[in-house]
Structure formats: C-alpha cells, structure tokens
C-alpha cells in the first residue's frame, strides 16, 4: 500500500525525516519496502500484514506514526449536513444481515461531474490511483484516507425505488466498470436495483450505473460487508479491487457514517449539488470488547522487564483504554482493532512499540530428549556411502506429467495421485516412482555433453494403498555412459552396466550389515528384482526404447535402480558382532575353468560351496574372460578358493584332494574343463 509523507502530516505533526520515519515504521511492523521522492512529497510503499486492516489507510498509518513518535493524532472534524436526516426516496433492503451488517446511502442531486482539482489528482496519482472524475475521485480519496470503501451510482440509471443487498441468482450476469461481463452465482453478494445487479458487493460496481460526465444525480454507498463473503465473491468473480482488499480484511463499522459524510461534504464542495436525503439499514454499532491483561504474564512471555506505566502508555497511544488493579488491567479494545481478542495480542502490541530490539537475547534451558538412530540419521548414512562411491545427489520435482507413465511402463500398475489444481501438465500427478524424474535429469546432463552420469536421489514416491494416498521414501540410482580414468598405465574405461549398479547397491547393503540380499531376473525383460530377506524391495532396469526416446537419449544405455528405503531400513540392524581374526594362515587356490556360456557364476559358486569341505572358507570369482583363447559359446572363469583351519596351519597335501574334489564336481555337473 502507498501513503505519502505530506498526507500523513495532515494527521500528525511529523518531526522526523522520511528515511528515519520509514525505519521506525519498519521496526514497528509496517515494513516500508521503498521511499520515493516525487513532486515535493515522499511516497512510502508499505507492506501491511493481513491482520491489520486498520493500517490500510493514511489515517491508520498516521495513528501508528503518532504512537511511535510520541505525538498526538490530529482528529479531522467533519461537518454533518442536516439534510442527511431527510428520508430519501430510495429504500434499502438487506436480504441477510450476516452478509451485510450495515448499508448507508446518501442521495445528492444536481451535481456537476467534471475534472478533479490538481491537489486531488496529485494525491491519488501518488498513491497509484488514476483520476476518473471529481465524484469517483472523491470516493477513492476517502477510501485511501480513511480505509472506508465507498461507491457512487448514477441514481437515474437505477430501476425502481429500492437498493437491494442480496445473493445473486443463478444465471444472473453483470458487466463491471472494467467492461468485463461476469457470470454470477449464489455465492456472490450483489447490490441490485429492482430488476438486476448493479454491483458486486464490496468488489466492483456495474458499468451501466457508473458515474460519468452526464450524471446529474448520485447515490453514494457506504457499507460493511461480511469479509468471508466478499472474499468468496471476488475469488469466484476473479477480480480484486482496493475495496475488496479492505472488506476482506475487515472495515470499521463505526466509521462508515463519518466517511460517508466526509465524502458528501467534499462532493458538495467540488461538484456542487444538494444532499437531499439519506437512508441507513442495519446496525450502526459494533460490539464492545475488553481483554484482561496480567502484567506479569507479559514479561513472562517476552522475557523482558517492562513496567506497568510503560505498558499503559503504549496501549493508550494505540487507542486502547486501560483500567483496573495494579497488576491486572482491563483493556478496552478500540472498535477498529478486530485483531485483538486475547491477552497475547496485547503482548505483541506492547513488545512492538517497546521495540523488539530492546528485548534481550537469552538462551533457553533446554531439556533435551534426543532421538538417536532415527530414520534421518540412517538416510544420511546411506547418502554418505553413495557419495563415497562417486555418485552425485540430485533433487527433482515430486510432481510430473501423467503421460510419462506410459513410456516408463508404469501406467498399468500404479494408480496415479492426481493434483486438483496443477499450473501445467508437468504438475498433473504426484510421481509414483523416482525413475522418470531421475532419467530426465540424466538426459539433461547428456545434452550438456557429459560422457558419464552417475546420480542418485532420495525422495518420496506417492501412490494409493487401500484407496488411501500414501507416500514412501525411496532411493533411485542412475548410471549412464562411460567414465575414463587416467591410471598409472594409461586410460581405463568403465562403462555403466547392471554390474556397476549391483556393486553400488551391494556396497550399501554390506555397509549396513544387510547380508541376506539377492538379485534375480524378473518376468519383465531388462528388469532385475532386488530382494532383502526374500522380500522384493526394489528393482534395477535397463531403460527400454520408448522411455529413452521420450527422454531424447540416443546411442546410450541408461541403467536405473529404485528401492524402498523404508523397507531397506526395516531390515537394518546397526548392531555389529566381532569375529575372531584367523589364528592360522589360509591357503588360496585358483581354478580356471572353461564352461558353457549359459552357466552362471552363481551356479558355479553354489556348487563350489556345496562341495568344498569345512576348510573352504571363501570362494569368489576372480576373473571372467571371453575371447580368442576360448571357443565360441564358452567362457573362461577363475574361482579363487581360500582354505583355512582354526586349529592348525594347513599343508599343501591336505588341500590338494579337497581342491581336486571341487573341480571334479564342477566337471561332473557342468562339464567344466581346466583352462
């Protein structure tokens, strides 16, 4: 909201410079976002918080200026013209007092609508309001000065003898002064004549009844409308105005008459005419409110030591009246302070004017109830393992385009959670999986000429479980491209593949002590299931062509994995057990085999472990080879076996028969040959 320095001076004798005043206002809660010198005046742009409609006017800000600079507020005296007591020829009907507690109308006849005087034009222009004509400008001027919205109708354009405040009927329409035709509904409060709507109450007047150069007689409206109703009305009509902004936040009922008289006085002065009558419908008084304030509790909440006299004078300067015993005041709340309903509201007023900067900084006596080993700590550990393996963390959007699901083969399974009010197609649904977002992120980086992308994300995936929206914390890893490493002896290339992905996931499992893990091909091609304790907790996938095409990834394979972190952490037991170090050295023996291509490393290892005696402590694949020396359809595999006893040092002679038996078994079962 804009106010000017000189306009404020109409209400309070300001002795501080504009810049200093801006700082004082900011520190009192009226944040001045800019001060601009224009035409011999200073325009303050102020952010008024939604709880303080009483600050939405020059007079309201002036009251605050008076309080924080220790000055008296200059009350403007206004002339009340006698003739306003004459009954006007127009009746007012209010359909529901809850929608409109007070409606007043003044009839002014024989006005001369024309151009406003310079002083009026200039003030309006400084606060960002375009000059229309003298009558309209006066209603706006009073709005900015007092915070009371007014509206002037062309009386001769009204049909019949009544002004009716009612809800719109289904199918009714109005063309507002901005020349837009707007459909109305029963949620919208309107002002109507006997035939049709003439204004959206508290929001905007109708074009047909607006005051123009040809207007002779006017009806001047000053009223109070229900804030929630105005809010709903302007939202469903899709417009906002200076009036609706104030009505929504609350307009002071007790100043309606006063503002109306002031406006009438100005109209008579600047546009001539006669005030021939007035009508009022509804209440003219608001409820009196008092709040009991315990002085001790003020200092207790603030951690301050403000004395009773200081509190009293602060409250008085803001328009509150205090009475009562030494330590407990009864505070009468002024009618314009809708926001003050309880003692804590007064605590803020006292703290604000006393100055937040004058309250000490202390440290609370914390009685900590630390939570250790909670999910966030474990997730942090997993992230650390992944970054340690060279992966970079990404954060992608939780909302996504529904049409992406099909290419990612997810449409059939997941019932997507749709967003009611997305701003674009990219926000249609809550993502049921992280893979699409992370894949898009890989694509973007490939586009930026990255040869190798290795990333992960930890975030929620969303879905329906038993018809109820649910969310699950997941981990997604993506690998793509070839990494070149300059090693001791030249460049070594490492191309992304399933085994790289598996290695990363295995490292996480092993670091967390999760031993019972397994990777199994699923029914879907290019998909590997990831199991923990026989439960499927995730999968790895080589993205297929439709998804790659949608992501615009060409000539590259993209490997992704997605796991439920919640299920993973369910199995995680941080306890670790020490195993005694071997007392005797072991003997390592390799077997290099040539086997049929289709025989898996898993089958071989399983057989080795079955056959190996208790002395065989470990068997692992140490080489895998296909090439010149191996016939087509076969592969070379080297298994390293470690033999060890806890009782003695083993001899070669002891190992020899055991190791031969292992080979014999492999020969019998798979026809394996020594390489």
């Amino acid at each position, binding site marked *: 909201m804009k106010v000017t320095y000189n306009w404020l001076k109409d209400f309070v004798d300001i002795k501080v410079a504009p810049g200093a005043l801006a700082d004082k206002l900011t520190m009192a809660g009226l944040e001045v976002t800019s001060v601009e010198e224009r035409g011999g005046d200073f325009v303050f742009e102020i952010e008024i918080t*939604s*709880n303080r409609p009483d600050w939405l006017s020059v007079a309201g800000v002036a009251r605050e200026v008076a309080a924080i600079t220790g000055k008296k507020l200059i009350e403007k005296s206004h002339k009340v013209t006698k003739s306003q007591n004459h009954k006007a020829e127009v009746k007012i009907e209010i359909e529901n007092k809850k929608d409109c507690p007070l409606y007043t109308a003044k009839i002014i006849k024989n006005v001369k609508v024309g151009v406003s005087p310079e002083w009026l034009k200039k003030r309006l222009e400084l606060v960002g309001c375009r000059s229309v004509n003298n009558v309209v400008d006066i209603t706006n001027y009073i709005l900015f000065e007092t915070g009371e919205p007014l509206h002037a109708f062309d009386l001769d354009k009204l049909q019949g003898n009544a002004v009716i405040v009612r809800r719109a009927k289904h199918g009714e329409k109005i063309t507002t002064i901005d020349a837009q035709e707007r459909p109305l509904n029963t949620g919208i409060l309107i002002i109507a004549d006997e035939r049709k709507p003439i204004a959206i109450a508290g929001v905007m007047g109708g074009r047909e009844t607006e005051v123009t150069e040809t207007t002779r007689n006017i009806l001047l409206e000053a009223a109070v409308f229900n804030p929630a109703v105005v809010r709903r009305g302007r939202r469903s009509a899709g417009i906002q105005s200076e009036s609706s902004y104030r009505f929504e936040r609350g307009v002071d009922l007790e100043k309606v008459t006063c503002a109306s008289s002031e406006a009438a006085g100005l109209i008579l002065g600047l546009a001539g005419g006669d005030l021939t009558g007035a009508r009022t419908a509804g209440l003219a008084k608001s409820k009196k409110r008092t709040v009991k304030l315990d002085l001790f509790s003020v200092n207790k*909440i603030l*951690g301050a030591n403000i004395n009773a006299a200081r509190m009293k004078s602060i409250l008085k300067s803001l328009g509150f009246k205090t009475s009562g015993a030494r330590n407990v005041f009864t505070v009468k709340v002024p009618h314009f302070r809708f926001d003050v309903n309880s003692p804590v509201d007064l605590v803020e007023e006292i703290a604000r004017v006393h100055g937040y900067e004058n309250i000490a900084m202390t440290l609370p006596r914390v009685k900590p109830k630390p939570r250790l080993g909670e999910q966030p700590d474990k997730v942090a550990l997993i992230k650390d393992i992944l970054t340690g393996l060279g992966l970079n963390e990404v954060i992608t959007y939780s909302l996504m385009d529904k049409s992406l699901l099909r290419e990612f083969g997810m449409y059939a399974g997941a019932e997507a959670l749709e967003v009611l009010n*997305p701003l674009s197609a990219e926000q249609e649904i809550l993502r049921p999986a992280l893979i699409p977002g992370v894949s898009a992120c890989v694509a973007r980086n490939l586009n930026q000429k990255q040869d190798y992308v290795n990333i992960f994300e930890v975030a929620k995936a*969303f879905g329906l479980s038993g018809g109820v929206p649910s969310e699950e914390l997941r981990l997604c890893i993506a690998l793509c491209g070839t990494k070149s490493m300059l090693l*001791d002896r030249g460049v070594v290339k490492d191309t992304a593949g399933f085994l790289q992905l598996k290695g990363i996931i295995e490292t996480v499992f092993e670091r967390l002590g999760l031993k019972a893990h397994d990777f199994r091909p699923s029914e879907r091609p290019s998909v590997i299931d990831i199991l923990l304790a026989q439960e499927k907790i995730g999968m790895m996938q080589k993205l297929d062509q439709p998804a790659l095409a949608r992501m615009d990834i060409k000539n590259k394979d993209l490997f992704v994995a997605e796991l439920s972190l919640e299920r993973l952490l369910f199995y995680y037991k941080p306890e670790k057990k020490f195993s005694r170090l071997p007392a005797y050295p072991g003997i390592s023996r390799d077997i290099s085999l040539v086997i049929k291509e289709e025989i898996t490393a898993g089958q071989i290892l399983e057989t080795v472990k079955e056959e190996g005696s208790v002395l065989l402590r470990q068997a692992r694949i140490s080489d895998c080879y296909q090439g010149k020396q191996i016939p087509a359809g076969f592969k070379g595999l080297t298994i390293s076996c470690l033999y060890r006893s806890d009782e003695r040092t083993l001899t070669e002679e002891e190992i020899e028969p055991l190791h031969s038996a292992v080979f014999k078994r492999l020969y019998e079962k798979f026809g394996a040959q020594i390489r």
Partner: protein
Amino acid sequence: MDIEAIKTQIESEIQSINSPQGLEEFRVKYMGRKGVLAQLTGVIPTLPVQERASFGQQVNALKEKILLIIKEKQGSLSGEKLMTQKGSGCDITMPGIARELGRLHPISQVMDEICTIFSRMGFSIVEGPEIETEFNNFTGLNIPLDHPSRDAFDTFYLKSNSKLLLRSHTSPVQIRVMKSEKPPLAAVVPGKVYRPDATDASHSFMFHQVEGFMVDEEITFSDLKGTLGLFAKAVFGKDIKMRFRPHFFPFTEPSAEVDISCIICKGKGCSVCGRKGWLEILGSGMIHPNVFKHVGYDTKKYSGFAFGMGIERIAMLKYGIDDIRLFFENDLRFLKQF
C-alpha cells in the same frame, strides 16, 4: 635357493625381453605350474618350522614383484606410456590418481548444516509426510478457511480427496509432534513443501524448509532471539548483524521476521538486499495459544517458540546463486561446485 639371486636374475632377464612371446616364456619360467616360484613353495614344508614363516613371506614378496614386473612389461610392450618414472621418482605434475567423490546436493548440504547446528543445541530432527490434511496445514495452525491470511499459502490439493493437500509449509509437523508428545519439546523439521507459484528465477512450486520449535514451561521471546542469534552466527559468520521485525503469522503471537545484515554489501545497501542493507531470512514467533488449544496443551502452563526458513533462499544467499531453478535442473557442472 637364494631369493636375492633370483631377484637379480629376473631384473636382468626382463630388460632383454622385447616381445609378448618372450614375456610369456618368462612368465611360465617363474610363475608356471613347475616354475621357479612353485619350486620355492614346495620347499617350505621341508624347512625347520621356525624358518617357514619368514621364508614364505619372502616367496610371497617375490611373487608380487614378478607379477608387477610382468604387468609393467605388458604395458610397455603394448605401447602404453608409463606414468611413473622409475629411478627418477615420478612426474609429480601429472594429475593425481584417485576415485572421484560424489557430492550431496547443495540443498541437502545447507539443510544438514542447519539441522546440525540446532541438533547441537539439543533439538531433535523430525520429519513428516508431504501429503497433509487441511486441518494440520491450516486450521490447527490457527489459519481459518476463507481468510486473507491463507492467501500467503496457495496450495495444491489432491483430486481424489479435497481435504488432502501437499503441505505448503513444514509447520503441520508441529501439530503432529505436539499431538503425540508432551513438553518439553525441541525439534527441527527439514522437508519439501509445495505452492502453486509460477516458476521463475526466484519462485519454484517445490522448495525446502526447515521448521523449528521448542515448548516448555518457561520459554520466552528472548529465548527465541538468543537461539536464532546463535544460529545466524553459526551459518553466516560471527560478524553478522541481526534484527527482529514485528510481523504477522497466524500461528505465532508475537511474531517476528528476522533479517541479517546483507552478506554482500555488509549493510551498506546493494542490489541483492534492495538497497536496504538487510536480508530477510526467516519467520518466527511465540506459538499462538490457539495452536496449543488445538493440540490439547495447557496454555497457562506452556509457552514455546517456532521459526521457519526457506532453504533455497539461504543457499542462494550463502553461495551467491541467482536463479532458484538451478537447484532442480541438477546440471552436474552446477552440483559439483558445492
């Protein structure tokens, strides 16, 4: 057999090898099934017990050496360059050889840093769901429906259930924690939040917040000032100045916005701080009695403070990033800077 003699022999033999075949012959001679090493190993059981271990070690060392020599020779024979220069040490100006470490996202880094600071002050870290009820996101926090105070919190709703929404701030976790636990309480809540804002350099429909709150019998506004003062110094440095400005939030009373002296111009006024010399970094206040009423706390007995901050904003200020969209584009060239 004298191991030292074998070593000398190997070194001279390897010099004269200049073909892969020659190298293979060399390999078989030493490493083959009936090679020199196999013979050496065979000797071990015949030695006196006390000598076996040290002899075994020497044999192993020899084996390692031979393997290394073969590998090096393979490299030089296949035309690859030797990166280390034997004898004269190495060309230390060559790039070091190491595995590249990955990075946490800058938002995670800032969020972790903030949580760690508060966790050292005794706050615990709590998380909550991103799909929330209208009650927890609004009503329970003293934000009535159909009220202008809701304008600051435009919200994504779910199509299937109009009472469910994507949380527009992390404050609903206050309600969850207070409903399930009694004071004393001190917690920080990191997480994602959503608001239907059109995306531009300073707005994103998804962003991150850290919320904090403390409730006990004698928590004061001065405690809030002290706690946040400590926090600002920890994040932005000891010389940072801080000010508390009255503001309005429906869920706190009194409420304050917190500014720090501009970290770019040190308070003189620049384009980052809009010539004001101050940067707004968080909102805070004393928890409103109505919030306590909603969770069944005795408003006479307990008081507390709460604060909340946008992580993207703090990260942007801290690192001098001028476009919020960079965080969600995840360009590796961007991510690897932090």
